[in-house]
């Protein structure tokens, strides 16, 4: 698999405080990588370090296979765009002027494409209105448009929906999906609003206290959090035989318990088990969500906003 970003034991210390504590992560090309973690977990610090705004205290990272200490990293960085914390735009300028500055900065020969980008983010009609007078959502979208100047193929978005109204959240979500699907841009997006992230991400990295505690694809995660039934029986071998006969997907989680995926009639299962001489002791329905999965991973209560 080709990776756009890879970090190895990445560490960032602020005096004695470790904001990043040996993070090793891999962002596959073309993915929407959701960085999940509570406030202060280290998501923003990770993005700042990757963007070159801050120097790592230890470990390393590479962008498009180029190590951060390599001189060629500047060329790799030109292939990425980022909106970290708040959009980096000149508030005393119009949307178009902001785009022109970014185009000049990147040394693009002409302003062709500015209108298309503004159209893409829904700011084509803002005219002479200064960015200072934009709504938070508009500023966020302009920030993304600025980050998209020069057609980057890797986009880093730090909490892009923070503080947005429901309409703004939908707009940003659709924009990110559009960029990922239509332009095949790899997106690294951080958020603590998991319900939103689950609508976008193809891969997840769970961060807590500066450490990456789990890296998982959306597909695998879906398997782990999908609807299941936990059954406790007197004989797990008999349970296996019954479930195989019924053609159900399952896994044994202990010598007396099994997890059955999908929906099943409890009566049918009880009868089948009785035929095998096995007693059904307890049945618990488990409908694990991304939130509960995350809470299970990091422990604690109300660690993320679930909306």
């Amino acid at each position, binding site marked *: 698999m080709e990776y756009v970003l890879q970090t190895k034991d990445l560490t960032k210390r602020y005096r004695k405080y470790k904001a990043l504590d040996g993070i090793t992560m891999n962002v596959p090309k073309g993915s929407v990588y959701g960085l999940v973690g509570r406030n202060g977990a280290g998501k923003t610090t990770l993005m*700042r370090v990757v*963007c*070159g*705004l*801050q*120097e790592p205290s230890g470990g390393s990272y590479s962008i498009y296979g180029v190590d951060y200490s390599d001189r060629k*990293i*500047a*060329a790799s*960085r*030109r292939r*990425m*765009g*980022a909106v*970290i*914390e*708040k*959009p*980096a*735009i*000149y*508030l*005393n300028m119009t949307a178009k002027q902001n785009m022109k*500055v*970014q185009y*000049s*900065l*990147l*040394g693009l020969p002409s302003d062709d494409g500015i209108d298309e980008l503004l159209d893409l983010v829904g700011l084509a009609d803002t005219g002479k209105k200064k960015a200072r007078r934009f709504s938070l959502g508009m500023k966020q979208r302009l920030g993304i448009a*600025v980050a998209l100047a*020069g057609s980057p193929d890797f986009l880093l978005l730090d909490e892009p929906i923070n503080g947005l109204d429901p309409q703004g959240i939908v707009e940003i979500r659709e924009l990110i999906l559009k960029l990922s699907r239509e332009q095949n841009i790899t997106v690294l997006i951080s958020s603590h609003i998991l319900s939103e992230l689950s609508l976008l991400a193809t891969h997840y990295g769970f961060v807590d206290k500066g450490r990456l505690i789990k890296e998982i694809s959306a597909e695998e995660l879906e398997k782990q959090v999908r609807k299941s039934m936990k059954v406790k029986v007197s004989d797990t071998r008999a349970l296996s035989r019954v479930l195989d006969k019924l053609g159900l997907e399952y896994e044994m989680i202990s010598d007396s318990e099994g997890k059955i995926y999908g929906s099943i009639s409890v009566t049918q299962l009880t009868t089948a088990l009785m035929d095998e001489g096995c007693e059904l002791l307890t049945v618990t329905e488990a409908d694990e969500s991304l939130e509960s999965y995350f809470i299970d991973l990091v422990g604690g209560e109300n660690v993320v906003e679930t909306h």
Partner: protein
Amino acid sequence: MLRLIKINLRLRIFSPLFLLGCGAALTVGIVSGRQVAYVGTLHMTPTPLFAALITAVISAVFGIGDEFAFGTVRNKLICGVNKPIFYLSQLTASLIMGVIFFLLAEVPYFLMGYGSFFGKLFTAELLVRGGVLLGTAMLFCTAIAVFICFIVRNRAASLIVCTAAAAGLALSAVSLSRSLRYSEYEIIPVQELRFNPDLGEDDLVTVDEKTVLREEYVREPVRTVMYTALKLDPVSSIMSALDIIRADEFEIDVRSLEKIEAECEKLRTGIGRFKKDADYIRDSLVNSVYYPLWSGGAVILLTVIGVLIFKKRDTN
């Protein structure tokens, strides 16, 4: 780098602050020039320079402060601009703006005052020396302001620190210059009380003068330290320029470098000797042309420190 400088200049030139600054510098230059032309004077006023300096510093503070306030510095660093290049591009843009403001304030002042003041009282050599001292001092002060902006990263705080730094540099230059001005010796008249036989009473009669050591004279090694501090201070270049472009009301001839040198020599040997320290006066009027090398060196060192600090510090 060149691209970044162009962007920085474009951002500043298209800001309303630039037009305001240009207007202020030009107005002060013209008003000061008119005063010279119609009222007449025997010394150069620092007002146009101060106007240019204030506008240049404000332009730098807002130009650099905006990058930090709006977070747009991130856009530059993310797309591969390295921190030293960013610092140097901002410094260059600020210096170019400084030159623009300096020319806008000083050129009308000089041109308007040329016929009645500058051209009649001073040789071209002195005028060029004065101009170089003023121009370089202003650029160095702007570079110090840029350093402050990068350290403080906040417009309001930068303005306060810049004002404090300007006051500090000015006060230290004035106080060092005053201390170093004293000659090592002074001549005091010796008065003796003598009996006047005609009047039949005592009378004060001056009979001679005596050379005595002056207490205020700063001795080595403190003198060298103070001298060095004075030369490193860009304000001392401004003070020197103001001293050079200053005429005496009794002067008939055009003031030249040779004349200044002769005056310095008088302080050493002739009438009025020991009035001021001859070496110091000669330094501040004749050798001051080298002052910018000292203060420029200090500013380069400060810039290197600024670049290293900016490179080392995290950007949010």
